[in-house]
């Protein structure tokens, strides 16, 4: 299997390609994470013949900037950093995906979406704004709503009001026919399970003519984490729809 660190369009990433790969998973990490974290979790995808690409998000990993701590205890700094990261990553990923498709190792492979927490929300933005059209998507421990903002946060950031008032789920019609699976723990203290369920409920009318393409998996006793069993289900979903 090919495992390499590369820089594509100035984005450091890890590229992992099993023999005979038949799909490319663009796997986005969460706030405070980095490419190495999702790469460590990618085994179930490789086992099913899916290549994975793990980019460092803006302000993360090799692109970290000291000002942004991504420490949830520093709420204002955390929230602002996450919002800035999301906006920057949404802006840069369409060009990255285009460039990845031109790499000899990945040429011709269908694009598949996986994202954890913040990375899942980034995929919601990309799909709902029709910036990328993956063949299938698996959103882990995330939702189509932004993080709850403190009372005065939007007053200090009027440029973000529109994003908060028009979250991805308000653009439900843009999602089908992309098969979309949400995977979530029922004890998630960061992204409450209800947020994911509200997301699926908001998207459901748009999928009414698309039997089985919108689904949710809930894992009992699981918090804001990515157990192997959850990753295996995400990989199976993407593999099923990659054919």
């Amino acid at each position, binding site marked *: 299997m090919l495992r390499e660190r590369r820089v594509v369009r100035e984005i450091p990433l890890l590229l992992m390609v099993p023999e005979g790969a038949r799909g490319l998973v663009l796997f986005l990490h969460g706030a405070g994470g980095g490419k190495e974290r999702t790469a460590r979790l990618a085994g*179930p995808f490789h086992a099913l013949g899916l290549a994975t690409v793990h980019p460092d998000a803006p302000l993360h990993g090799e692109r970290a900037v000291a000002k942004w701590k991504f420490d949830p205890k520093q709420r204002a700094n955390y929230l602002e950093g996450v919002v800035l990261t999301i906006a920057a990553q949404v802006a840069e990923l369409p060009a990255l995906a285009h460039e990845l498709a031109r790499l000899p190792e990945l040429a011709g492979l269908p694009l598949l979406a996986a994202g954890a927490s913040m990375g899942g929300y980034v995929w919601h933005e990309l799909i709902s704004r029709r910036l990328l059209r993956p063949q299938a998507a698996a959103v882990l421990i995330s939702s189509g709503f932004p993080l709850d903002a403190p009372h005065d946060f939007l007053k200090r950031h009027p440029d973000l009001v529109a994003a908060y008032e028009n979250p991805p789920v308000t653009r439900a019609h843009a999602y089908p026919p992309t098969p979309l699976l949400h995977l979530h723990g029922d004890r998630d203290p960061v992204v409450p399970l209800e947020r994911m369920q509200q997301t699926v409920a908001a998207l459901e009318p748009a999928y009414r003519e698309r039997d089985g393409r919108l689904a949710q*998996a809930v894992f009992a*006793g699981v918090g804001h984490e990515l157990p192997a*069993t*959850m990753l295996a*289900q995400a990989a199976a*979903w993407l593999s099923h729809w990659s054919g």
Partner: protein
Amino acid sequence: MKPKGLLVFLHGYGSDPDYVLAQAGPFEAAGFEVLAPEAPDHGSRGDGGLSPDDWEALARHATATVAAWVEELAAALPRWQAERGLPLYAAGFSMGAYVWHELISRRLARPAAAALIGMGAIPNVPVPEGVELPTFRASAYPPLPLLQIHGRVDPVVPLASVERTLAALAPAYSEYPGRLALLALENAGHELTPEMAAMAAAWLARWRPDA
């Protein structure tokens, strides 16, 4: 290649093994030998000749079928396993899913993992007075990895009954996070779809020792 597990896939009421075998592909690709036995009084074993309009008679017949199938599977499963020398895995659709709940909760079978589709441990027919549902025996399940798969708009077995199953079992799984899960497919009905089969196969394969 030699199979790595024996998957016993039980069909639903009024159905037959062909219905579940039509979705055997993902399980076989994942390394399972798939065995789909025929329920008592079904298919070549006689179909009871019941009219779907006679609901009470149908319910009695379904209850009797479940009881008979549980009894014969409790005897047959160890034999099938011994003949093949393979670990046992469970899959079932509708009545077949409920039969697995009976087998597991009564400790009559101990599969390595289970993926049950279209019904939980709460049947859609009246339960005779004094009979305890499998959910009363929740402590018998863990550490069995159990995935329930269900269509959101199932008109035969409401999703709510499976959600109640999960809620009843969850306390017993408190020390086994991630081993009890519910996959709900929006706009899917009382059916066994290719997506459901793919996800069930992945769940079962995940829990094999070689995973």
